[in-house]
């Protein structure tokens, strides 16, 4: 075989598709049940989980019928008890009425004892229904089929949310199944104003994406914008809400998360009540909430369940933690390299003596330690639990002791890195914490080359970026900039509930009033009344 022939043959091979995708357009629901059955078989060729069952409807002259469903997505008991049994053993006078002509109507109206039933007219519809866990029932002589809602599949039960734990507060977390999630939400907000609109996204995955909002609270413009941005999405599959997040966010090049996510139904409910819009995606417990502002990332759901003094105290602590996580290593590098005069003399001497044997400049030292720590953290996340412990022990020994003894880093640097790590773990929002950790590296480099000026340049760059950022029309730094004092009762501190009469203005909810005024509790002033009550 000469070269050209071989090439041609190869090309032929490459062009020839192994398996042609099914074109549903060429199929129709037919009168003849045999033909229908063949069609479904062709469509679902090599799909071992699709069950295609022919049977006979009971009665005087048995009629041919068929069922199509996906094994594993339906509840078999329901099919056996309420479909097969009632149809095959048609009892009483109904059996006599049955003819080929009225079969469809009769079965639908008076025989099949299943709650949710709908009529399908095209084969596309039928196939879609089968794949989402409905059961298609067809009877001979009719070009319409019945779609029976008998969904029932194995799913993870409701467990405690693992990423957002609280000491006090509800313990249930969202699951992977959209219906359970909407049910959990509905149990919290029992109002017809809670709207849950579903869009199907993804060419192959056909994922349900539910947009939840409270009509009358959520800003109309935001809702409209959410739907418009969802409308644009044309993708082969959506497996997690992050797909949606990246496809609809305002500034795709920003390192900062522009949407808050949660796996707690109470957080979703609280956000809806503030006038936000939630986006739930089937197959993931993580719900997106828009619009989001920066200050939300230092707030934990628990803030609203603990006494407000404690919450405010912890929130201020978290704000400090945020700054430490971002800046501590760079401030250390800058002050030991450029601004030694700032450090009190005894401390400076101690640091200098520690650094005496260290061969690297503080900048390199900091980068080494920070990178090691990031490795350790990543290893801890990826490894199986049993091995994870070993990693943390090795890491603690290596970082905490051996590196210092070997004279590679100074003990002060170990402390700085450890405190930074602690601070970044104390942030309730993982996506924000990871952003800060990432930004830490350029800031360290700038601090090591230009000192405090370098840190300031980095911070200004971040500030410029953040002031220009918007999440669904809301400035990201609100209510700090633009400054709205009335909202400060829920930013760095959490005011008691009786003082938060209004919803945050930045979200632009349609109705700002949250509660009646003057809810501050006070003991009865009238002594006589109290005594009377005692009697």
């Amino acid at each position: 075989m000469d070269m050209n022939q071989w090439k041609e043959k190869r090309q032929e091979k490459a062009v020839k598709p192994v398996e042609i995708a099914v074109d549903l357009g060429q199929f129709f629901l037919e009168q003849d049940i045999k033909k229908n059955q063949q069609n479904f078989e062709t469509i679902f060729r090599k799909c071992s989980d699709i069950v295609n069952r022919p049977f006979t409807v009971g009665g005087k002259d048995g009629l041919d019928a068929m069922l199509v469903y996906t094994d594993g997505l339906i509840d078999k008991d329901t099919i056996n008890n309420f479909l097969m049994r009632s149809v095959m053993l048609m009892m009483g006078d109904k059996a006599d009425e049955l003819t080929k002509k009225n079969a469809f109507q009769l079965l639908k109206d008076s025989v099949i004892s299943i709650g949710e039933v709908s009529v399908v007219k095209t084969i596309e519809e039928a196939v879609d229904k089968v794949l989402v866990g409905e059961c298609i029932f067809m009877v001979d002589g009719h070009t319409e089929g019945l779609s029976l809602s008998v969904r029932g599949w194995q799913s993870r039960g409701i467990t405690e949310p693992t990423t957002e734990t609280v000491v006090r507060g509800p313990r249930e977390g969202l699951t992977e199944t959209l219906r359970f999630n909407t049910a959990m939400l509905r149990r919290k907000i029992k109002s017809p104003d809670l709207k849950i609109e579903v869009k199907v996204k993804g060419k192959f995955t056909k994922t349900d994406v539910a947009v939840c909002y409270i009509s009358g609270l959520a800003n109309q413009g935001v809702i409209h914008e959410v739907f418009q941005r969802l409308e644009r999405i044309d993708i082969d599959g959506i497996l997690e809400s992050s797909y949606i997040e990246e496809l609809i966010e305002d500034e795709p090049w920003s390192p900062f998360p522009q949407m808050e996510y949660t796996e707690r139904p109470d957080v979703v409910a609280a956000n809806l009540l503030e006038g936000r819009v939630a986006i739930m995606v089937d197959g993931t417990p993580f719900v997106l909430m828009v619009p989001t502002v920066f200050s939300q990332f230092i707030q934990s759901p628990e803030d609203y369940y603990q006494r407000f003094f404690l919450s405010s105290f912890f929130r201020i602590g978290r704000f400090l933690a945020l700054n430490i996580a971002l800046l501590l290593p760079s401030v250390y590098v800058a002050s030991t390299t450029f601004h030694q005069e700032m450090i009190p003399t005894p401390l400076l001497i101690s640091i200098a003596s520690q650094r005496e044997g260290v061969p690297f400049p503080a900048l390199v030292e900091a980068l080494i330690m920070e990178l090691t720590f990031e490795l350790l953290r990543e290893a801890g996340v990826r490894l199986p639990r049993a091995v994870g412990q070993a990693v943390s022990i090795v890491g603690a020994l290596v970082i905490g002791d051996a590196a210092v003894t070997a004279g590679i880093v100074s003990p002060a640097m170990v402390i700085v890195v450890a405190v930074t790590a602690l601070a970044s773990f104390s942030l309730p929002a993982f996506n924000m914490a990871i952003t800060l950790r990432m930004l830490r590296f350029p800031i360290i480099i700038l601090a090591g080359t230009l000192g405090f000026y370098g840190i300031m340049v980095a911070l200004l760059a971040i500030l410029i970026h953040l002031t220009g950022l918007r999440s669904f029309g809301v400035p990201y730094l609100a209510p700090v900039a633009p400054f709205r004092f009335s909202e400060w009762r829920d930013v760095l501190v959490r005011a008691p509930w009786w003082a938060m009469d209004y919803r945050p203005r930045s979200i632009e909810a349609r109705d700002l009033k949250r509660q009646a005024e003057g809810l501050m509790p006070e003991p009865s002033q009238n002594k006589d009344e109290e005594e009377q009550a005692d009697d």
Partner: protein
Amino acid sequence: MIEKGRIGNWQLFLIVLFIILPTAILSVPGVTTVLAKQDGWIAVLLATAAGTTMAVVIGMYYKYFPQQSLVGVGEIALGRWLGKLVGIGYIWFILHANSIIIREFGEFLTTAVMPRTPLSVFNISVVILAAWAVYQGLEPIGRMAEFIFPLVMPATLVVVVLVFRDAEPMRLLPVAHQNVKGILAGSMVPASWMGEVVLVALITPYVYQQRRSILWVVAGVIVVGLFLAVITMNATMVFGFQNTRHLLFPTYSLARIISIGNIIERVESLVMAIWVAGVFLKIAIWFYMLVLVTGETFALRSYKPLIIPYGFVQIALSFWLFNNFMEFISFIGTTWPVYSIGIFELGIPVIVLLIALVRRKVRGDNAQA
């Protein structure tokens, strides 16, 4: 409208503050004391009075011509072509002034903070940052002002308060003793700084509720004046005027002597870092005004293409304008006040305003729209 964003009066107030204060707070105490001696603070207060007058003139633009910027009013008053000439004049003024500010920023950092780092590092990095800020537009600049304000103000106040134990009020005496000429001359420099408020006349149409803006503009200048007076007084009380006038950056030197219980010491680097934020914002606002006034004068659809070329021009000018810092100081102390106040800060705004008002009166109120 070339600018889509809108800012509120509070943001306008902060912009007035940041247009003037960040560099003024560094240089004014030193330069004023040279002429006014121990009465520097009186000179600054006098300058504040002058600055308030200029602020009132600018406020009038907000009151009477809320729909036009200074360039627009210039076209109303002087006709299309002369009006454009006003715009071109301001393009030059802002370009020149902002290059001076950038130079001052770099000079301060190289002389006082990091002597071995070349000037270009600071000049170029700050212009890049400012260009990025300008690219974001007016609204984000307003938000930056809101964010940086709570950093800059407390830092300055802390310096003022913490050095108080080294202050010696006797150094202010004798007050205004046979030195009226010196005080008047010394007030020229701070007055030229406060006259920089003229820039906010360029963003009149982009402010909400312009008719009340006059109060905020005037308040901004008064706050700046009080701040400068306190700092000048403080520097005189701490160092004595004989030393203050030889200090290039008295405020920075004040931060230097802070010491509390051997724990908080020598916080000048921290103060410097915060001050950098302030000056960055000042440069960004001037830069923004530059591209805005250019865009408006030449009726461009967008000012964004101007940012990068102007950035280069400003970096270049910031190097070329002066050979060394002494030349800079003498220019700021002698030529600059006459040139800036006389022409751009008071001259043109007053003339244009008067002619525009008279013309409107003559034509009747329906010409307002």
